[in-house]
């Protein structure tokens, strides 16, 4: 636990010192949302389904961008140092936690941008935000793990996309389902099952990542 905390603090410090990733991501998000807004300009008003689909598509591309650098940005010597220093479990958990915060920030930001440019379609905002919070853990876990796999190869980014997208799909479909319920203002008891499903999926992916990561890490 202490190791995990130390690693997260290290990542945050590193990020704050450089500041390139965060600023880049914010700009990326703003640009993409603006492009989406302009391309739908000739449509009088975006309907709820389009809004929902756009939101999640933009979010997974941005999160993929955010997470893809996780294991590549650190040079080989430092990774070797960490390998001697820490348990693989703490490495992957700290990376997942850090990326989860990053993805969460991105999704909240894009939600704000969507409200600004395309109007707020979600009738039940608490449900929508809760959905985002639970979802970002799972998205971050899957993407972090996939980026650990693809960082072992040469064509990192392409591989990350083709390995990641099919695995994200089950997750994404449930998230979109809940989001659709939040948008149309359904009652809580209609979505409670989906929330449970998301939590189970989150736990499962985390478990798999903890079990399998040591095999990726040893090199």
């Amino acid at each position, binding site marked *: 636990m202490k190791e995990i905390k130390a690693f997260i603090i290290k990542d945050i410090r590193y990020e704050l010192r450089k500041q390139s990733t965060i600023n880049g991501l914010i700009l990326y998000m703003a640009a993409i949302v603006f492009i989406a807004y302009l391309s739908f300009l000739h449509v009088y008003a975006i309907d709820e389904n389009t809004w929902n689909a756009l939101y999640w598509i933009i979010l997974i591309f941005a999160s993929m961008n955010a997470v893809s650098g996780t294991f590549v940005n650190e040079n080989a010597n430092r990774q070797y140092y960490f390998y001697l220093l820490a348990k693989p479990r703490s490495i992957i958990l700290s990376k997942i936690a850090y990326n989860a915060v990053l993805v969460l920030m991105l999704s909240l930001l894009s939600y704000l941008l969507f409200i600004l440019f395309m109007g707020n379609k979600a009738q039940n905002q608490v449900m929508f935000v809760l959905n985002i919070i639970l979802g970002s853990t799972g998205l971050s876990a*899957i993407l972090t*793990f996939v980026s650990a*796999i*693809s960082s*072992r*190869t*040469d*064509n990192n980014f392409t*591989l990350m996309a*083709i*390995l990641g*997208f*099919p*695995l994200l*799909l*089950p997750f994404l*479909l*449930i998230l979109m*389902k809940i989001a659709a319920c939040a948008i149309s203002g359904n009652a809580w008891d209609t979505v409670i099952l989906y929330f449970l*499903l998301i939590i189970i*999926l989150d736990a*499962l*992916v985390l478990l*798999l*990542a903890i079990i*399998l990561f040591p*095999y*990726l890490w040893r*090199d």
Partner: protein
Amino acid sequence: MKKNVWKILSVVLLVYVIIAGFLGPIPDLDIVHQTIRNLYFHVCMWFVMITMLSISVVNSIQYLARFNLEKDTVAKEASLIGIFFGMMGIVTGMIWAQFAWGTWWINDPKLNGAAVGLLVYFAYMVLRKSLDDPHKRARISAVYNIFAYVIFILFILVLPKLSGVSLHPGDGKESIMPVMSMDNSLRIVFYPAILGWILLACWILNLRIRYIKVKNKIDT
């Protein structure tokens, strides 16, 4: 001879399935009519695909336990054969869909599940191609294989419940397969067909592994 009994059984079963499948009696059903005969081919492809992918993932786990490269070969070949039968399943399904629903492709949870499965395993193959060192390739692709298999199986279990309606029979509150409501004249061909196709796939797997072993010996 004794060792090859299952291969003979496979051929006998499949010959029986083809003859009885095209000529045997069928119940008079709405909409599908004669195309119900595709049941012996299309549905069995999915059984074979899941079986092969399961063999693949078991071998991947065994590889991570012992680091024996032969297990990796089995894992790769089994998933290749799984992909092949999956594609056959999609092709036979598309032909069936054209007759029964009047379209080649339709937004249906089972079709989407199949498509995602193929995407996952194509990605697995691309991942293997992009790693050169055999041990590293075996280790990393085994990790991906296990990770992907669990999520894929979960996906095809959860997805039909999520979307609610499927054009395939037996979804929703009923069992996964509509075997319970199946006519007896279909069953006596359907069950042997599943076994026959799975045995055939095992035979192909067996041949592929032996071929690769010999090839490796010649190369070194």
